[in-house]
């Protein structure tokens, strides 16, 4: 029985699928659980959505309050491209890689997890509540990628441990062609020198590993039309 947060979110969509599965007489344990959690789940009142028709809701959109000019925005982003950030030893190996995009104060994991028992739990109620797992099949869960003990590493399907700073090896287990392209420099971002030292971003810099689908971003202002240029 699971009332895991990500399952709850998906439960609404799961109902028709569950009914269909029941009709075909082949309902798995997992979809049963999803339906059960749905029955206890009370949907919150729908939030007013900021849309183009909404009146005076502009301030609620992230990015809308940015008072900087577009040039200042990109200059700040360009200045932040440092590989590795000052004071941090670079990762030795195949590629020059920056630090993984950890949330603040979250690494090393064992600072908190050291004394904890590593019993399998699916609920994230106290910590890491911002994580909504939405990455591929529903059967996936924390310990498919995270090692139980020590917690500071990732874990491949083979059982081998992988440092967080080389997480591309973990992603490449399923996304082989993408890893191949990334190694060649065709997928993903690089910055630095075009023939000298360059820095490759990790998969996780652009794709949230727990919810990898690209979230839209706010575009910078469109150009002035020629008739308005004076």
């Amino acid at each position, binding site marked *: 029985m699971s009332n895991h947060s990500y399952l709850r979110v998906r439960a609404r969509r799961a109902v028709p699928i569950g009914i269909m599965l029941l009709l075909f007489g082949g309902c798995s344990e997992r979809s049963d659980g999803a339906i059960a959690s749905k029955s206890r789940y009370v949907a919150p009142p729908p939030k007013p959505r900021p849309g183009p028709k909404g009146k005076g809701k502009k301030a609620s959109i992230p990015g809308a309050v940015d008072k900087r000019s*577009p040039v200042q925005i990109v200059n700040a982003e360009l200045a932040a491209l440092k590989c590795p950030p000052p004071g941090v030893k670079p990762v030795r190996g195949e590629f020059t890689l920056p630090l993984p995009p950890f949330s603040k104060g979250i690494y090393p994991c064992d600072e908190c997890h050291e004394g904890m028992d590593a019993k399998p739990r699916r609920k994230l109620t106290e910590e890491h509540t911002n994580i909504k797992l939405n990455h591929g099949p529903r059967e996936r869960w924390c310990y498919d990628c995270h090692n139980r003990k020590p917690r500071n590493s990732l874990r491949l399907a083979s059982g081998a441990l992988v440092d967080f700073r080389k997480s591309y090896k973990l992603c490449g287990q399923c996304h082989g062609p993408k890893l191949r392209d990334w190694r060649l420099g065709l*997928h993903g971002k690089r910055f630095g020198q075009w023939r000298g030292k360059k820095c490759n971003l990790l998969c996780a810099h652009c794709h949230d590993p727990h919810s990898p689908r690209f979230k*839209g971003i706010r575009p910078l202002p469109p150009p002035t039309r020629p008739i308005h240029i004076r």
Partner: protein
Amino acid sequence: MSSKKKSEEACEGMSSAGSDRRKFLAVSAAAAAGGVLASCDPEWREAFFRKRFKELNGEERERILGQMTRQSQRTFGKPFKVTGEAAEPGVSFAYGLDLSRCVGCRKCVYACVSENNQSRDPQIHWIRVLEMEKEKGIDLFDSTAYYNPRKVPRKDHFYMPVACQQCRRPQCTTVCPVGATWKEPDGIVVVDYDWCIGCRYCMVACPYGARHFNWGRPKIPKDEVNRSTHYLGNRPRYRGVVEKCTFCIQRVRKPNGRYPACVEICPVGARKFGDLNDSKSEIRQLITHKRVFILKEELNTKPRFFYFYGV
């Protein structure tokens, strides 16, 4: 017979009278010009008779770059640098753009504006990002550069940034009446702003709309000026000259040259840049492993700018 001789004499007479007049005009014009030039600043006089940048020898280049550096330091304050690195032999630049990744955020547009000291008012953007419908495919006629949704990418749309394609057979350079624009040995098409007369023939000849004209005196906020400049690239421009993308010549021509600004800012890594002669460069891998296409292939301009679908 005699009439023929007469006419010949008349012709001679005419021609001699013409040459006299021409000689007189030339002498008086030279005298007038000399008078004007003698009274003005020697640096200005030197600039008036300066050769094209590609024709200058090393010593002349150094002197001119020094003058320009000093002049710009007076205008924009120190530190300011105008350099003139020549093309490195054996390097052939090319560019790749992944249409399946681009989200149309326009960060490249403004990174380019910042890096290359483009005029903010009147506005000049070297990169135009076109929004197109997936259903129609690449349809330049139905595309727009003025889209402004809350979030990009919009559903069922894709984005195609267009800047100078750095053609191997550039049409813009062939039409220039004064030879102010040419193709460098490493493939970059450049403009000598001191030679440009602002006739805008090149803008008409360019099938990609990649050249832009300074209709007014370029205005840049003083604290946003990029102080590391190249003579053929992002040095401050004058009113009435044409400018264009140079693959960030001031960045890539350095010994440890950095990627162009648009490559570094792209949040999705859609932009690829490198040396075609280096078998390990991204652009070479790209051409080896992916199917690429060029824009307006039928015009036989042979761009160095390759679009592809990384998928």
